[in-house]
């Protein structure tokens, strides 16, 4: 009975042997016209050379390589008025990969999340989610297709309780209609009981059952971030997007979060793409990393490759190293080493020369593509 409730990619009911992602019945819309399937990447490389518009699937984790990537982004770009916030962004994410998106403030990371979830309509480029183009989809369709996200500036349903925040995310899996709701029919009671249990299971997993009845808006910061992750997970996604999940957390909370993110991937067998400034977290759990600067991708690779990439170090640490060396902090005296150790965090981000592009954008008039009329973070 409960079994027929299992839905593709249902994280609460995932059997590891059958990952339930439905690769078996995937639609090959993207590969169809290329006999030999993925050979297309080779052709494209030859054709495009360095300007390869196809995401590099060779850096997918070994275990994900024989499955189509959960997400493929090709030449994605967006302009706000005359300003190019993101350009030529390409990326592939494996079915069970934890991937990272890093870069200084204002680099365009959140904007990429907004394009993936169709909060913004991209100006250029293509997004294939679960092998299907997301063209013409809106934010709601994207979530239904299996992409869920958190927000850099926490966006909870403040006046609902913690449990309700999760229950509302289960709405697609709550099977009763308006008349049942109005008359609290037996079907309503059955379904409410079921999703109550499901929500409590989720809360147990995150060790937050004791605050189930609290208003979401009254939670401490760290708990709010975790609730956002739970809410996103409750929609049973294939791909989870986390926008600065460790922001505002102390080191021990961050370490805890890092463990949680790994657990989520292992338990639910889903892909995770995260934006984060905390290098210990990024280098600690990401298998593939893309680095963004001024809207352009400056590097892609494994944590080791990224840490030794001179362009990345430059983007993160800037040229004015001399000034920093004057400071007493040992780590700051050798920022390169500090960066490699994964200890550089958003402190470096907030340097005024990095904040500048954001200020420029703010002055510009919003572009056509900005359908919501204001910045969504």
């Amino acid at each position, binding site marked *: 009975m409960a079994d027929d409730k299992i839905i593709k990619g249902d994280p609460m009911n995932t059997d590891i042997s059958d990952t339930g992602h439905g690769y078996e019945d995937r639609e090959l819309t993207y590969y169809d016209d290329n006999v030999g399937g993925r050979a297309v990447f080779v052709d494209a490389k030859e054709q495009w050379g360095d300007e390869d518009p196809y995401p590099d699937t060779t850096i997918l984790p070994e275990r994900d390589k024989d499955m189509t990537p959960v997400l493929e982004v090709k030449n994605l770009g967006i302009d706000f008025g005359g300003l190019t916030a993101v350009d030529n962004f390409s990326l592939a994410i494996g079915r069970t990969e934890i991937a990272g998106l890093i870069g200084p403030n204002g680099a365009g990371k959140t904007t990429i999340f907004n394009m993936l979830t169709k*909060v913004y309509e991209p100006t250029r480029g293509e997004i294939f989610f679960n092998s299907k183009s997301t063209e013409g989809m809106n934010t709601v369709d994207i979530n239904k297709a299996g992409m869920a996200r958190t927000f850099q500036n926490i966006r909870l349903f403040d006046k609902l309780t913690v449990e309700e925040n999760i229950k509302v995310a289960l709405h697609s899996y709550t099977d009763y209609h308006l008349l049942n*709701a*109005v008359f*609290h029919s037996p079907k309503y009671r059955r379904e409410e009981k079921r999703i109550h249990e499901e929500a409590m299971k989720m809360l147990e997993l995150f060790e937050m059952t004791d605050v189930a009845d609290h208003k979401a808006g009254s939670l401490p910061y760290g708990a709010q971030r975790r609730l956002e992750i739970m809410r996103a997970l409750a929609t049973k996604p294939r791909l989870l997007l986390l926008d600065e999940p460790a922001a505002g957390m102390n080191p021990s909370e961050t370490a805890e979060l890092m463990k949680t993110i790994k657990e989520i991937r292992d338990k639910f067998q889903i892909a995770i793409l995260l934006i984060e400034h905390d290098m210990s977290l990024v280098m600690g759990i990401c298998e593939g990393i893309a680095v963004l600067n001024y809207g352009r991708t400056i590097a892609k690779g494994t944590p080791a490759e990224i840490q030794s990439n001179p362009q990345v170090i430059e983007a993160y640490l800037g040229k004015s190293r001399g000034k920093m060396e004057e400071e007493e902090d040992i780590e700051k005296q050798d920022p390169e080493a500090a960066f490699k150790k994964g200890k550089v965090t958003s402190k470096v981000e907030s340097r005024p020369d990095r904040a500048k592009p954001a200020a420029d954008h703010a002055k510009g008039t919003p572009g056509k593509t900005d359908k919501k009329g204001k910045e969504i973070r």
Partner: protein
Amino acid sequence: MAERKENKAGAKRLRNIFFGNEYKKEATISYGILIVGYILLQLGANAGLIGRNLQGQFVPICVYISLAISLNLVVGISGELSLGHAGFMSVGAFTGIIVTRMMEASMPSGNVRLFFAVLAGAITAAIAGIIIGIPILGLRGDYLAIVTLAFGEIVRNIMNVLYFGLDGKKLKFAFNHTIDGVEGNQRIITGAIGATGVTKTATFTTAMLLTLFTLFVVLNLKNSKHGRCIMAVRDNRIAGESIGINVKKYKLIAFVVSAALAGMAGAMFGQNYSTLAPLKFNFNTSVLILVFVVLGGIGNIWGGILAATLLTILPEALRQFADYRMLTYAVVLIVVMICTYNPTIRARAGMVWEKISPRKRRKKKAEEAADHDETGKEEM
């Protein structure tokens, strides 16, 4: 001792049933106010303690409470400003009157006619809600308020030129002129004069039943998937979309259910008078209903119930002020608004309440005792 413990456990279980969570608490208080109020008024009327004038207000009070509850669904739960609630009320009222007039010959029971009037009022008002809801629910905030305001005025203006009459058993209608061959008491609705010759079928009891039904629908809806989606979108639209909530669909549900309930209340209202002019359902009435909701505390259903009751009785109670009646009414309204929304006054009131409320006092004592215990343990 054991007995006392058992009693305590029983009391705890009872408290859990009636006040266990926010929904239960809200339901208990709201139903409680309505039922206790009904019994008190009924007893008072039977004992001859309540004057004719006030007794005449019983049905309108129930109707206005229903309207406040249903408007709360849009303003409090869905978070949209609607200024056209009287429009739905009007649609329901006149539909109900037409239906009862058509049934009069064949159905002697007033309560059955009333039932069908209310049902028909719900259906037509819901249709009106869908027709204006679909195009406007993409609009936000002020725009929605303006369009709903216009809707209310449009309904009133249409009713001003609409003529309905019974020719034998056939229902006839016309715009802008009386219907040939339909004379005297065959006329049901006569333009700006409105409905005449209505047989009153509404009673305090049936009106209260409708109010209870309205409360039932709104509270149940609030505590369901649909209610949660509606409130989620109110709290954060973008986050709502990001978890796959179809914003327009749920806003429309709130709007249409609210409209249908307003239509029912309107139908009840129409069955309480022998004549009813379209002017009754003007902008002032929409604003009045909104005032109930705001005064009761947006989203607070039992607050709206109390506000609707007091503000319906107040004008009657102020009759002795004759010419200054409306002025006094407005002043009272302003003072109450300032008092409820001024944070310092609210804090003061809270302090006073804490001093006089026995439960709070007991709780405080218990807390102090608990503190004492803990510190005691620490010392050990």
